């Protein structure tokens, strides 16, 4: 009896290991790393069926986390979607492969405005995915947004009703802009001032969170939140008391792009996937999922009127003029990280 049990156990074991082992060898796999909730996942399945491959899909919540994951070396991602300043850093560190644009014919749909950007000046490494901005999502019933300033987030009348982002560049960005500095400052004094400002803000904060703010705002459990524009669009669709403001001091304009890290073993397949995501249909479906502003010249013509009227989706030109794109501060990035750690530890 016991021997049988052990035998069964051993067989089960071997079968299971074999099962998981085999699936690896038979088909090509594409390993993707993307922001959390940043793609219509049914697209993955479609791509798998279309090309007979298997996709391994991982997510992360801030560019810093992505960088560590990609850098660790124990991960062989074939395709990553992330933000421009991290891409710039990774290009500089030789962590990204050049793309073969012959495999990405749909690149032609990408709006020229988003090409030749400083993080990838010659359009060699990355294909833009979405773009957007940073702003304040607030509840019209409780908050007076007439000041139109980052100072709203420091308003003591809303103590314990303000949500900050658990992301160093974005939170520092808001503080730096309020102080009238560049979001890309490499001046230690300015950064320290921003840190002090963020520490001063701590008692007013309800929670530091990434990705969770829209849910809390829709439930009207907080008055305002620092959010990315797409989060605002989705929250505003669910609760009409919510509105979005891009402060007058100026904000951040960001571009998230797809790129292929040097660790890839499947460059061509990854390029095919990029091309697949650049189709009008895939883009439209992604817009429906993530609500960020699109870089796609065809898709923009097919989105709803309502969405086009939303300033968090169709960001007004006069706001864009005051916006700044994050740049890689090179070695100075360590100081950002350190100050941010200190701020959160306070």
């Amino acid at each position, binding site marked *: 009896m016991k021997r049988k049990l052990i035998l069964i156990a051993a067989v089960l074991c071997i079968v299971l290991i074999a099962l998981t082992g085999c699936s690896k060898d038979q088909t090509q796999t594409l390993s993707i790393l993307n922001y959390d909730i940043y793609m219509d996942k049914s697209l993955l399945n479609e791509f798998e069926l279309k090309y007979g491959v298997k996709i391994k899909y991982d997510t992360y919540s801030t560019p810093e986390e992505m960088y560590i994951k990609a850098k660790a070396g124990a*991960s062989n991602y074939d395709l990553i979607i992330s933000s421009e300043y991290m891409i710039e850093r990774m290009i500089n560190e030789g962590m990204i492969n050049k793309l073969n644009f012959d495999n990405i014919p749909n690149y032609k749909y990408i709006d020229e405005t988003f090409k030749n950007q400083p993080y990838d000046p010659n359009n060699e490494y990355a294909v833009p995915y979405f773009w957007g901005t940073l702003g304040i999502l607030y509840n019209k019933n409780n908050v007076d947004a007439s000041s139109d300033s980052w100072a709203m987030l420091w308003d003591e009348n809303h103590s314990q009703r303000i949500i900050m982002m658990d992301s160093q560049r974005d939170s520092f960005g808001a503080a730096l802009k309020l102080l009238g500095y560049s979001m890309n400052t490499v001046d230690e004094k300015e950064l320290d001032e921003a840190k002090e400002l963020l520490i001063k803000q701590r008692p007013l904060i309800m929670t530091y969170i*990434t990705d969770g703010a*829209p849910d809390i705002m829709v439930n009207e459990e907080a008055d305002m939140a620092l959010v990315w524009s797409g989060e605002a669009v989705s929250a505003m669709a669910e609760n009409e008391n919510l509105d979005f403001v891009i402060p007058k001091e100026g904000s951040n304009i960001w571009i998230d792009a797809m790129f292929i890290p040097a660790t890839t073993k499947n460059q061509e397949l990854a390029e095919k996937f990029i091309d697949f995501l650049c189709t009008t249909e895939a883009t439209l479906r992604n817009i429906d999922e993530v609500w960020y502003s699109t870089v796609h010249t065809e898709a923009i013509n097919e989105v709803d009127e309502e969405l086009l009227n939303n300033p968090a989706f169709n960001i007004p030109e006069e706001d864009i003029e005051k916006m700044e794109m994050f740049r890689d501060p090179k070695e100075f990035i360590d100081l950002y990280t350190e100050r941010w750690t200190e701020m959160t530890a306070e």
Partner: protein
Amino acid sequence: MVKKYLTKIYMGLIFIFLYAPIIVLAVFSFNESKSRGNWTGFSLKWYIELFQDVDIRNAFYYTITIAIVSAIIATILGTVAAIGINSMKGKIKSIILNINYLPVVNPDIVTGISLMILYISFSISFGFNTMLISHIVFNTPYVILSILPKLRQLDVHMTEAAMDLGATPMYALRKVIIPEIKPGIITGFLMAFTLSIDDFIISYFTKGEGVTNLSIVIYSMARRGVRPTINALSTIMLVVVLLLMILINKRSNGVESRKKINKSEVFK
């Protein structure tokens, strides 16, 4: 008499504290709207959404697979090791036991990061294998610790008698030792299985390439806010656990429910 009521009220309050959150989860899994505080009507839509959720399905598959495989390997490895350790003496034995003890006393986060560093140092890519190995690493000590006491109780003379009667050591092992320590092996297996299913921290540091488990999925969903699909998931898990426990309890009244206590006895 008053005392009796007081104790009843006290236990009642403790159980309300322990069960209120679970009941709330279960009730709101049938709520029609996403709202967390208001009941708007009965609906099964979160259950339907749950079964359509690819992430959860994936994570469920990996959770169960890793729990079964890691528990089986840990039980075999642990049983063999326990028999060996039991017949060791002196310093080496206590060193091995102390090292074996490390994953038990170490905070999970330390075990997690030390394994993460190991894998990265040797460029082992994260995924199913790393998670499986990590689970075996922290499961096996519990298996050994639940078998060792049984081995100590084992009557040495019985094995000797068996061999005097012509049994080979292997035969004696199979026919005498294993049957005697079977309860310890079963306890060890079940502990390994449940610890593996429940693990979050160690998996969190050793996951990768699309392999996650339920805890990790719940964590990333919960960070995004309250989601009725998680409520539905927890209700199902609760019902399964409840049925399982009742079944086990029926079969061996009380013995198995001490499983988790064993974890605490380990600390003595």
